[in-house]
């Protein structure tokens, strides 16, 4: 088993795992009940989904300028993703939205 096969297989595994996490985050964004829980789902797409897909592409790229661009894109997304989502959450709080926390009454309604 040579290194080429190992590289191909790990690249496939990363791309498929990244696709899974992206879809999981998007489904969560559609299904979760309020804005502050949807932030949690969006961060899955931003960090784990994007990271795994870009890592899979980096394994395909080999040692080239493309690899450098992929690393730069990933580093930039790692910096800006949480910053942007933090700004959105802060604006929502500033605008008066509150997280929908489960109170005792809610728990009794569930039963």
């Amino acid at each position, binding site marked *: 088993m040579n290194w080429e096969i190992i590289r191909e297989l790990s*690249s*496939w595994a990363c*791309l*498929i795992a*990244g*696709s*899974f996490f*992206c*879809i999981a*985050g*998007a*489904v969560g*964004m*559609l299904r979760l009940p309020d*804005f502050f829980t*949807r*932030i949690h789902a*969006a961060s899955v*797409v*931003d960090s784990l*989904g*994007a990271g795994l*897909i*870009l890592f*899979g*592409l980096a394994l*395909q*790229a080999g040692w*080239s300028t*493309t690899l450098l*661009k*992929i690393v*730069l*894109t990933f580093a*930039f*997304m790692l910096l*800006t*993703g949480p*910053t*942007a*989502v933090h*700004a*959105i*959450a802060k*604006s*929502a709080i*500033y*605008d008066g*939205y509150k997280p929908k926390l489960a109170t005792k009454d809610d728990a009794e309604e569930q039963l």
Partner: protein
Amino acid sequence: MFECAATAILIVMVLTILRALAGPTLYDRILAVNTFGTATVLFIAVLGFLTGHPDFMDIALVYALINFIGTIALMKFTKYKDLGVAHEEEAA
């Protein structure tokens, strides 16, 4: 394999667009558009490898920059209702 990733990212884009159209509050829509931008960056990157032009990574990098600046500009606009105001120093 690249086709699989591209299809998954297209599904993500459809789902986030649905949230952006349905989102009850303004911030839901902005969050959905931000995630849509992330998915677009990934889609451009995968598309480059799919068609055999890895140079598409340049476009993906620039799109990531524009996506961040657009989101921050929208946040400033929703807070101050004006893009031209300077940041106010908070009096202690």
